[in-house]
């Protein structure tokens, strides 16, 4: 019991800042929005019915999920060689290489997106270089659209993938690769026939974590989309702070939570599959 007693202050703060607001979020999602825009206390599913019956909502869901899925796949693909290099590096370099792979986690998201604006903008690094070489005439449009959002999201999801892959690959027995090499397999064959299958559970875990984070990403779509990219997160924000339609914002947030919960359960199911122990 003394354990719970020691945790009491933390539990109290989280109760006030977490459980109560979540309960309120659910309660307010059941309120009614009058035609005047005012909120009336009620117990009704009107906000849910209106959202679910609106094609725009389903377009948002589709756009959000495909964005998160594709950006996460790219992030895992880019993170894999980083994690493999850390694993293969000598102990002297391992710490620095791992740190470089995950340090962006602690750099403010806005700061990194400012960097991407300078890289992808009409007069940014890529366009200036390509135009200088005469490859393109008109600048490529890579910000204020889906391209910019996707690139920004890939980079912001990569450190999480690196983190998961480092943990997953660390448990992988390097002697199996050495055995394959001894038996005459070349490096490429060893990678595709031994390393990749063994790393598959870690890759899947990294991808699923990135998808969960990508679906709820807000700053990247908002800043890189330039007001032209709409996803679930930007819509919840606009409903709450621009239209001040709290029941609708709360209902959409609850739907988002339900979707994420389903994904987390899926992740739990995957982690129970045989092979994870490898």
């Amino acid at each position, binding site marked *: 019991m*003394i*354990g719970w007693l*020691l*945790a009491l*202050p*933390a*539990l109290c*703060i*989280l109760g*006030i*800042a*977490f459980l109560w*607001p979540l309960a309120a*979020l659910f309660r307010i999602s059941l309120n009614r929005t009058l035609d005047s825009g005012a909120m009336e206390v009620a117990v009704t599913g009107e906000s849910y019915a209106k959202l679910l019956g609106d094609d725009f909502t389903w377009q948002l869901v589709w756009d959000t999920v495909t964005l998160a899925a594709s950006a996460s796949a790219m992030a895992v693909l*880019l*993170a894999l*060689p*980083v994690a493999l*290099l850390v694993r293969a*590096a000598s102990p002297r370099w391992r710490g620095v290489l791992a*740190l*470089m*792979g*995950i340090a962006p986690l*602690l750099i*403010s998201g*806005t*700061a*990194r997106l*400012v*960097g991407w*604006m*300078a*890289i992808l903008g009409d*007069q*940014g*690094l890529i366009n*200036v270089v390509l135009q200088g070489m005469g490859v393109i005439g008109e600048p490529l449009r890579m910000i204020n659209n889906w391209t910019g959002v996707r690139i920004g999201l890939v*980079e912001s999801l*990569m450190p999480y993938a690196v*983190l998961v892959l*480092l*943990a997953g690959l660390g448990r992988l027995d390097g002697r199996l*690769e*050495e055995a394959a090499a001894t038996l005459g397999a070349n490096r*490429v064959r060893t990678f595709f026939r031994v390393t990749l299958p063994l790393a598959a559970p870690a890759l899947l875990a990294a991808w699923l974590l990135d998808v969960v984070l990508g679906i*709820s990403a*807000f*700053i990247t779509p*908002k*800043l890189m989309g330039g007001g032209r990219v709409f996803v679930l*997160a930007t819509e*919840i*924000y606009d409903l709450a*702070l621009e239209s001040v339609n*709290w029941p609708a914002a*709360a209902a959409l*947030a609850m739907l*988002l939570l339900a979707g994420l919960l389903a994904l*987390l359960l899926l992740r739990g199911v995957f982690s129970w599959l045989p092979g994870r122990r490898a």
Partner: protein
Amino acid sequence: MKPTWMLRVFAAIGYAVLMAPAALVLVLSFSAGEYLTFPPPGFSTRWYVALASNGVLMSALGTSAILASVVAAVALLAGGPAAYAIARLEFPGRGVLAALLAAPLLLPTLVLGLALLLVLQPLGLAATWPGLVLGHCLVAIPFAVRIMTTAFAAVPKELEAAAWTLGATPLRAALRITLPNAAPGAIAAGVLTFLVSFDETVISLFLVGPRLSTLPVEMFRYADQSADPLIAALAMSLIAFAFLMVLIVERLMGFSNAMGRN
């Protein structure tokens, strides 16, 4: 096995993607031009000067610094005992407690921010110091608990047992033996929770007001409207600050250790 050249090339691409934004921010923050264009027409420190004399951003910086200090202190004081319990004590429901204290990190900050707004606004606590502290503690406490649990678990149990044998009470042993030995971890936890609060953007977006705003929120709004080298100078300052903090944590307990979920 030694990394092949192919692995090195692909890993270099990965690192390039991770490092490119910070590199560009560094170059363009010293631009002499008016816009975020590449290459800069010349180099100067004019945007750092402009940043230092920007009243809105500087007042937001003050707010964020005070807020992050308060949040780090609250998170350590509230999270420390909980972390000690999870790392050291055997009691029914220990796993449940650990899961409860980590739960807020599972949910999107956007939803957390919205939920907080819905309860704080009717109470008149939106855009106030207590509201902001509460909102930041929501993400800072789970962080502090996780890092401090690792730190406490790393102190050998035998030291405490030896103190008991020598007649110390459990409380005295915890305070005089385990706590000092876990001190580097506690400082690392303080530094990281400070950074978590100092960089927190999304929850704050819901809880700030015209008279009380944080630096990440003002930076977000600035970047949303205009992209000039001033924002690069601010971004570079924040990156340099985060880099310094990460170095401190690395010296104290190993950054990967602190961030890992073991």
